[in-house]
């Protein structure tokens, strides 16, 4: 801990969400020092996750103005009181889900009871810091700017609770680390930690966005022999299977390609576009392809009727469906009870069931070792001033992950 003067407020740039669904305004803000159990981070890069779109479109006016964004990579700038394990300069990933390692959920270790739903700072759409509810951001007029899930990464500096911060070793590429902050970990984690896909299994993944494709990679890493990708967008077939991601437009060319490595597909072995099936339900097609249904299915969109399709696509006796997609209206999913009775299971999770501090470093290592090939999920890159381009690309379904570099 520095014996010098205490951290001071920092003036920096941020993309402020001033009204629902409006383009973000890049402006100067002030970021207060970290309080007890808090860490102030300099964000290196961040990316746009579909859940940010959901938050951005919220029709609750009182939530704005707000700094959103929750998928990022950064470096510790200063720490507050009672923070151990982090020092200035550490490479870190902030996460929307906390891990305290002390509550009953964090300590649960039996295979049946493992959960990442830490109860110390439970997941919520809070507007301030988690422990005291106050904010650390102000605009230049002195008005408070709300936080988002305790991360708020669309800012060159942010303040995060120590429970929501993951330390990474050196050598993890920033873009990779950034994706592990949400989407990539959710997908891989769901196959790896939640479903525990066994070698030789058959898997169906509904929705080949970032989370779905990460689940494809996760299933492949676990040795699944059949990975059926389901998406309404026919372009996703090539994305899922091919060795080269089709890039519609790139703002910044990727400066350094990874050194020569074997080009393999993302992992999809079969592709289904439900809009081309006519009257036949997708679950019936999958049943025919797999002798009764897949062992595991994953819903990665957040649409209840698709969750039901994913459920119906699993086989009797052993089928398991994992729900990852987030439905902001909390709509119900209708599960046919007779199919449930025939030995099927459904479970859901946030963050693919991973415990952030425990599992993100493991996943980072798998990326560095090429057990996971997630760089294909980065399709675009922009600077902070062009952050709204990232929104446009995602809304037009032209991107997977667009990295936003915080150039100072």
């Amino acid at each position, binding site marked *: 801990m520095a014996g010098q003067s205490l951290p001071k407020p920092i003036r920096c740039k941020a993309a402020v969400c001033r009204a629902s669904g409006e383009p973000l305004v890049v402006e100067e803000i002030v970021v207060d020092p970290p309080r007890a159990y808090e860490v102030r981070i300099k964000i290196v890069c961040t990316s746009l996750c579909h859940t940010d779109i959901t938050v951005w479109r919220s029709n609750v006016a009182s939530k704005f103005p707000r700094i959103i964004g929750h998928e990022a990579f950064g470096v510790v700038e200063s720490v507050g009181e009672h923070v151990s394990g982090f020092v200035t300069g550490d490479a870190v990933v902030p996460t929307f889900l906390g891990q305290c390692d002390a509550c009953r*959920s964090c300590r*649960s270790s*039996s295979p*049946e*009871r*493992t*959960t*990442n*739903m830490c*109860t110390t700072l439970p*997941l919520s759409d809070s507007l301030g810091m988690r422990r005291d509810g106050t904010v650390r951001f102000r605009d230049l007029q002195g008005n408070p700017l709300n936080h988002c899930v305790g991360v708020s990464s669309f800012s060159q500096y942010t303040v995060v609770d120590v429970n929501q911060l993951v330390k990474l070793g050196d050598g993890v590429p920033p873009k990779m680390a950034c994706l592990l902050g949400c989407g990539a970990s959710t997908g891989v984690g769901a196959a790896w930690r939640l479903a525990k896909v066994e070698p030789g299994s058959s898997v169906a993944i509904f929705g080949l966005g970032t989370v779905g494709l990460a689940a494809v990679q996760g299933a492949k890493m676990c040795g699944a022999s059949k990975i059926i990708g389901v998406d309404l967008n026919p372009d996703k077939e090539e994305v899922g299977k091919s060795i080269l991601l089709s890039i519609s437009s790139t703002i910044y060319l990727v400066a350094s390609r990874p050194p020569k490595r074997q080009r393999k597909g993302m992992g999809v072995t079969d592709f289904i576009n439900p809009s081309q099936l006519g009257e036949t339900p997708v679950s019936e097609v999958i049943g025919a392809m797999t002798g*009764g249904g897949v062992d595991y299915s994953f819903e990665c969109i*957040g649409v*209840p009727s698709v*969750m*039901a399709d994913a459920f119906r696509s699993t086989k*009797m*006796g*052993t089928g398991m469906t994992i*729900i*990852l*997609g*987030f*439905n902001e209206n*909390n*709509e*119900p*999913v*209708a*599960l*046919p*009870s*007779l*199919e*449930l*009775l*025939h*030995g*099927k*299971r*459904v*479970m*859901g*999770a*946030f963050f693919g*069931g991973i415990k952030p501090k425990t599992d993100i470093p493991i996943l980072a290592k798998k990326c560095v070792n090429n057990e996971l090939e997630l760089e294909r999920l980065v399709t675009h890159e922009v600077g902070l001033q062009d952050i709204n381009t990232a929104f446009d690309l995602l809304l037009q379904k032209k991107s997977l992950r667009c990295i936003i570099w915080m150039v100072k």
Partner: protein
Amino acid sequence: MMPGHLPLLCLGWCTVLELATSASLHYTIDAERAPTDAQHIARSSSNINRGSDFSDFQRVFFPAAMEQNTPRPIRCKAAVSKAPGQSLEMEEVEVAPPRAHEVRIKVICTSLCHTDLTVWRMKDFPATYPSILGHEAVGVVESVGDHVSEVSVGDTVVPVFLAQCGDCGDCLSRRSNICSNLPPRMTTGMPRDGTTRFSLAATGEPVHNFLSVSSFAEYTVVDVAHVVKVGKHVPPAMACLLSCGVSTGVGAAWKVAAVEAGSTVAVFGLGTVGLAVAQGAKMCGAKRIIGVDLNPDKFEIGKRLGVTDFVNPNDTAEKPVSEVIKEMTGGGADYCFECIGSAPAMAEAFRSSRTGWGKTVILGTDGKAEPVSISSTEIKRGRSVHGALLGGIKPKDDIPVLAQKYLDKELQLDEFVTHETGFDEINGAFELLEQGKCLRCIIWMDGAKAKESSA
């Protein structure tokens, strides 16, 4: 040499070889048996409640149908369902001999499960008319068809609606009990060829079977994959219970949920299945077993079977049961079981489970396959929903294990038999269940109960 060719004049045939060694309850038997041995059957000396073991039944002669070597059709009584919701009618039926992979069983006793009641009331599929219902029973093998080596004439067996072929990927997997060779179905007919073995003796009109068992008849024919051999020292009424309802409940706690010691459990519906869940949870060491039922009488018997707390949805002052349970448990139960077959109850059971690891197990069916409505966000908080048939157990492997647990007093099953009656009074059993006045009413086939009590 096929057991079916052997003359059967005396039940002394039906040997009880392992009375003393109750541990060896499995379904393969040695095939070497001299056809003319008339072995003396020792009476079991174990302290079995509800009367004696099967040795008394073995003094009953089989009908003269067996005077030749090939099994012939048997004429006997059956309780036939002829119209939705109407009293069963006693008819003389002809029961064809067992074909390949089939076993003809002389039913000792049977009981009424709510699923029989549900289908009995239905006009359309899966109900068919005329049919012989009943799928919970125990009996003695009377004859076997070709390719049956797993059981022999005289063995005590429990027929089960769920098959275990032992060969397919599901049967070989630890995780599944849904045999894929002979998958469960609600359609009638024998599992391999879809035909029935029953016809009305007077007219020859075929009578449909039910769930591959049809136990409301003095004799029935069951596929060997649906037959579980049990030891002769298991009291018949207890073996009968394990044929469906009790195994479903105990299995759900033991296998599907794998309830850990110290857990909190909520059981929706305290009928036979629900109370069996309570027993299973207690056997697994659950600390708290909350029973939910509209009938306050269920608490007394529930307490005897392991229920520690009782919630009556009529007495919660408009508060949803899930709210009450969450308050009682500080956030929700570790495991919730739905044992009624009501879609709204299934949803309420789900809402009663805790975040992080709350598991909801669905056991009930309403026959109409109503969808269960689950919050897409609440399930993401670490919850899961599982369903199972027969409590996730593999019948041939696990029913004998449960029978042994009963004998070892790890499971308390006597309480489930609340009534007994003779076959002629079977409609009385329907009335009792309809009125919610019984758990299991054991229906003794003619003579069986009398023989037992006179022993």
